[in-house]
């Protein structure tokens, strides 16, 4: 067991944007970030839910630009480091540069778990800017431990100082996490850190994060009160309490985290972020957590069940970023059921 400090990275103001349909205001972000800073959270991620370049019809338009959010939060915090998400194919290096200029000093460069070779220019550029740079392998359950290790080695070779296993669908079980992180620990350079980003769709966010730490991960993404896509991220204050019981230091103030969850984040929620029929379907079927609200919307539009749409998306192996295929799939299902006319 490690007694090394575990770095907690809060996702409320990025993954949480998904659960809020990108409608968190600059003032709310400043309030949350100030409280996180006071509670000793070392890193917080601040961007549109889909990251840099995320403002779009595909992913929704936020209330402010990424630069506006980042610079407002940067002015408000003293110790907490601000990170951003960058998915190549959506975000670009010029957007990373302007995020850096606004105050971001850390980045998750995210690719689907088999496509790490779309990230070399972005990872190298982030390092050139002097940013703390993580490679972020989304939908990790869709690759084997060996395959994930190869992808992680690629990201390490591009210059990532941390590589994340990212359970975007909240599908993984602790034994999967243990196996993968153990292999990464063995193959990556000793100075490369390993991270884990969980979703709580099967209620395994905390257990998976603990398994990751026990296998050698030192960075854990979570969000206070779980505010995030699907059934939410690993609830950060719960993980902090568990780690405290395990005598694993995180440098955070547990009671302050509990207060943020209860007094600030929960009242911000538009719906209770929890395991329910649809978010459980995500975890069970291995579907990208962000698809949840889009599927609910499409279900309502065409008179279908969100669960049917999600299962079909899982069957068609749709991945993060293909939100357009939710409406498309719903329209095709609706046509098959006679609920929608054929195209002219």
């Amino acid at each position, binding site marked *: 067991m490690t007694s090394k400090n575990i770095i907690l990275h809060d996702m409320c103001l990025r993954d949480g944007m998904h659960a809020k349909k990108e409608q968190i205001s600059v003032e709310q972000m400043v309030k949350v970030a100030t409280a996180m800073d006071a509670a000793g959270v070392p890193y917080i991620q601040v961007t549109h839910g889909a990251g840099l370049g995320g403002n779009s*019809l595909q992913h929704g338009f936020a209330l402010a630009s990424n630069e506006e959010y980042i610079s407002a939060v940067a002015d408000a915090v003293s110790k907490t480091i601000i990170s951003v998400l960058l998915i190549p194919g959506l975000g670009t290096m010029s957007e990373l540069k302007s995020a850096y200029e606004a105050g971001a000093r850390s980045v998750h460069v995210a690719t689907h778990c088999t496509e790490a070779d779309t990230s070399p220019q972005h990872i190298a550029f982030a390092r050139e800017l002097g940013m703390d740079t993580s490679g972020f392998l989304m939908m990790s359950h869709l690759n084997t431990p060996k395959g994930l290790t190869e992808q992680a080695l690629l990201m390490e070779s591009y210059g990532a100082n941390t590589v994340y296993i990212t359970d975007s669908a909240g599908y993984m079980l602790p034994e999967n996490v243990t196996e993968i992180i153990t292999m990464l620990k063995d193959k990556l350079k000793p100075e490369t850190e390993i991270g884990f980003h969980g979703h709580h769709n099967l209620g395994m966010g905390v257990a998976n994060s603990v398994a990751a730490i026990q296998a050698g991960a030192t960075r854990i993404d979570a969000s206070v009160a779980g505010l995030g896509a699907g059934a939410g991220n690993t609830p950060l204050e719960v993980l902090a309490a568990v780690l405290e019981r395990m005598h694993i230091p995180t440098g955070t103030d547990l009671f302050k985290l509990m207060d943020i969850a209860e007094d600030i984040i929960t009242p911000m929620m538009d719906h209770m972020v929890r395991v329910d029929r649809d978010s459980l379907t995500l975890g069970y079927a291995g579907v990208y957590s962000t698809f949840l609200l889009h599927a609910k919307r499409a279900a309502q539009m065409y008179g279908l069940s969100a669960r049917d749409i999600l299962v079909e998306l899982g069957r068609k192996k749709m991945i993060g*970023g293909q939100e*357009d295929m939710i409406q498309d799939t719903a329209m095709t299902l609706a046509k098959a059921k006679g609920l929608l006319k054929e195209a002219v």
Partner: protein
Amino acid sequence: MKKIKCALIGSGNIGTDLMYKVMRSEWLEPVWMVGIDPASEGLARASKLGLKTTAEGVDGLLPHVEEDGIQIAFDATSAYVHAENSRKLNAKGVMMIDLTPAAIGPLCVPPVNLKEHADKQEMNVNMISCAGQATIPIVNAVSQVQGVEYAEIIASLSSKSIGAGTRANLDEFTFTTSNAIEKVGGAKKGKALAIINPAEPPIIMRNTIYCLTEGEPDKAAITASILNMIEQVQKYVPGYKLVNGPTFFDNKVAVFMEVAGLGDYLPKYAGNLDIMTAAATRTAEMFAEEILNGKITLTPVEAA
């Protein structure tokens, strides 16, 4: 019938697929295939089909341009080397069709603006990107009916169809395509998103086009314009197909397309290769036709 002799530069996925299309052309004859790796599969295939090959890049081709009468070259290498390739070949009077995101010449989407470029005798035209070729005709079809404030396209591509060059340079793909949505599509602002999906069996290329119209969309006119445009594209890409839409929500028009390829080099799922190589072939044919009819004469471009 007399044909215009062509060189294919780049022996990767795009260059190899292009070779099969150019071979079938009534107007074009592929003579050279240029690569940089003597072990590349593309060069081996070209050699087997009777093309002359070199693994020494464009410099390996230059001494043969005059004796072999090369008049059109296709560049399917990368944005970084295209400018130099183009300069060298233009200086010998060879017209360039650029399949990289370099975009130093005017942007070309055949059913939208090819005729215009041929009339101007351009010596370098750029084919934008596969996503651009698959989506800009639809954006243009909408903007022919009414103003488009913003257009956004999402291209889903199978992992197996995306070569190393595109993977390492996704930003160039994004910038070139976004810019072309404005310049050629006619949208005031354009945005392009690309998703690479590794599913097995590989997914067929999908493209979603969203347009925000200025004012309430004229549904009937927009639908008719889109359907007409799809027919124009189908003339050179038979697998270009409407899956869902056009569907309207407030001032948003959404169109869901799929592109199946002909299966020349990669299997049918790789419609992204086909739409790019078919558009490039059609562009070259238009120029070839004009050259053969004596309407245009290619002249060497003085080096700056």
